[in-house]
């Protein structure tokens, strides 16, 4: 026990002596959390739109105003030439061009039908889809309004219809940050756990000091625990720190008992530290270990459901997420914080995580030799 304590002391001294490491561990994550929380947002706003109004009637102006007052679009230019607008689209100055043809109002009244044209810059496919969706629904609303004004109808006079009401549970204001910030915390904790621990052991190998450690009476498990425990503590501290920042800055909801998050994180970190250890056992240089860790982490993170839902993945990819520890932690932290899930809801995932920790650390320790 005393031996472990001394190794721990040595490790902490080394971590804190490195001047540039301190800001990396404490300042950078906060900055990342703040930047990421604002940046990670799929919501599309402020699309710039060019309006080409050949009609110049009351209704065409009303349609334009309705589009601009929705909050999704800002007017880039109102022009009278289709060519100019298309040039804006080409030069990325406009995302959308709305063309209202001449005699729009007259056709609408006389022929009961009029067309408007929307040109969308679709290089970013999903953005273009959303932009068109917003514009089409605004035009639809405007259409209903015009119809009711002109025919002097009101809602209840219409034909039979289904009255759909919807409610958004757990996040009624649709605040995307409540969803993203817990996920970002997972990434930060993962980076500390998997990267630093693995590199720390390889560093001793690369510099050659591992031989000195090997000839000391330190036992294998002393060495491993001494190497991993500091990062386990630092990462848990980081999580607490991040949660506090999240609470203060974004007023994150804490629906469930936060102890479940920490309990889960404690086991999750064992998996990540074990992964770092495992990688360090079959790499010789820090560059190698970093690279291999990076490779696995980027796959884990992209496939974790952090940015895109797991349900939208094809079946083979969904199967793969079953062995992805990041996916479990992302799911659990969101469940506990947003929905207030308790032990009964997460025990299944907790069991899987324990199993993973046992397997990964078992293989890593078995693979680790105290000889060179």
């Amino acid at each position, binding site marked *: 026990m005393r031996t472990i304590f001394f190794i721990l002391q040595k490790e902490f001294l080394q971590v804190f002596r490195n001047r540039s490491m301190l800001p990396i561990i404490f300042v950078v994550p906060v900055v990342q959390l703040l930047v990421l929380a604002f940046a990670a947002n799929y919501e599309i706003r402020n699309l710039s739109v060019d309006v080409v109004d050949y009609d110049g009637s009351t209704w065409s102006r009303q349609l334009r105003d309705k589009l601009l007052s929705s909050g999704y679009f800002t007017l880039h230019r109102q022009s009278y030439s289709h060519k100019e607008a298309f040039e804006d689209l080409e030069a990325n100055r406009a995302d959308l061009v709305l063309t209202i043809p001449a005699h729009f109002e007259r056709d609408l009244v006389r022929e009961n039908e009029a067309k408007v044209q929307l040109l969308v810059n679709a290089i970013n496919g*999903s953005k273009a889809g959303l932009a068109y969706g917003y514009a089409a629904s605004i035009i639809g609303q405007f259409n209903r309004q015009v119809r009711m004004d002109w025919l002097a109808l009101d809602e209840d006079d219409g034909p039979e219809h289904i009255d759909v009401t919807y409610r958004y549970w757990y996040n009624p204001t649709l605040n995307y940050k409540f969803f993203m910030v817990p996920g970002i915390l997972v990434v930060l904790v993962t980076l500390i756990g998997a990267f630093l621990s693995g590199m720390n052991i390889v560093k001793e190998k690369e510099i050659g000091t591992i031989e000195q450690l090997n000839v000391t009476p330190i036992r294998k498990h002393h060495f491993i625990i001494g190497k991993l425990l500091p990062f386990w503590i630092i990462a848990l501290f980081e999580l607490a720190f991040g949660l506090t920042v999240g609470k203060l800055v974004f007023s994150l909801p804490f629906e469930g008992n936060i102890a479940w998050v920490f309990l889960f994180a404690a086991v999750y970190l064992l998996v990540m530290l074990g992964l770092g250890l495992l990688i360090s056992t079959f790499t010789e240089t820090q560059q190698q270990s970093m690279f291999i860790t990076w490779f696995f982490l980027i*796959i884990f993170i992209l496939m974790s459901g952090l940015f895109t839902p797991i*349900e939208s993945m094809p079946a083979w990819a969904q199967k793969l997420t079953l062995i992805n520890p990041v996916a479990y932690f992302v799911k659990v932290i969101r469940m506990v914080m947003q929905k207030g899930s308790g032990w009964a809801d997460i025990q299944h995932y907790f069991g899987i995580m324990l199993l993973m920790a046992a397997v990964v650390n078992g293989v890593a320790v078995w693979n680790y030799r105290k000889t060179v």
Partner: protein
Amino acid sequence: MREFFVFVRKECYHIFRDRRTLLILFGMPVVLIVLFGFAITNEVRNVKIAVLDQAQDAYSRQLTDRITASGYFTVDRYLHAEQDIEPVFRKGEVKMVMVVPPNFGHKFYHGRKAPLQLLTDASDPNTGTTLVNYANAIILRYQQEMTGKITLPLTIQPEARMIYNPSLKSVFLFVPGVMTLILMLVCAMMTSITITREKELGTMEILLVSPLKPVTIIAGKVIPYIALSFIIALTILAMGFWIFGMPIRGSLLLLLLECLLFCLAALSLGILISSLTNSQQTAMMISMMGLLLPTILLSGFVFPLESMPKPLQIFANIVPAKWFIIILKDVMLKGAGLRQVWQPTLILGGMTLFFLLVSVRKFKTRLS
């Protein structure tokens, strides 16, 4: 000049001897392209929902059929009471619950208005709203089916044309993105680490007392990585072209020259980082937090820049990746020539020059 080539050869040996890193270096772009191409989408498909059908009439059953027939939803279970809703949501098993109140069909035909409730798990707000939109569209279509077709007077028909990407493929976004990310990784992260490695192992001193000039040492370290990143860039372009049908409408030569420019910018950042730190761990953390994350987040690759708060949008201007992605898209998709992309090219060139100057100034020929 001969010494220089010998030094480059030494660096190449280092790189080629490390098989694992090399494997990952070439495996990474392939894996990333495959993941982005096939697995990472926001599309809604086969989402599990639950139905609480209190009406149990022909119409409510037909409506459920229509919802499942769309392919967007599958009915995971039928609930029997309102109390059952909360637990299924809490376990995270279904994403949406449709509540059909009693006498659905009767109310529709006799009361002219049949209420229907959609409850979504909006802990992911994006999916939540998308689900409601899709379900709404299906319900609307079913309603038309129930009433028979009615032509409404005064109909405005929006006609849409999706320019440059009519089928709204996401490949046009992620091929440039992955390319930028990998080039940044190879050029900036790898160089900063190889240089700090010499420092950490103490071999930098030996190099500095050798007749090689510091500039030669740095150039020698950097050139193999430029070659490597070029091969990787070509691999990504080839995969994008043949597997996903990403067009290259502009000139290939211009495209490669722009790649070279971006590589230089990334390399100079890598050299700068290595002159600021002495340990590989720090160099790695700085290049990851300071270069890779901004490249992923603030370049418009994953998240749209327009919807970010103003300060972030302004900050994004100093991220080289943003300009490189603009150039890539313009050249590949719009067939732009140098005349159209001179502005981002100039900005990128200016950045490169600035970083190179700073890193040369900062590079110390003395160790302590």
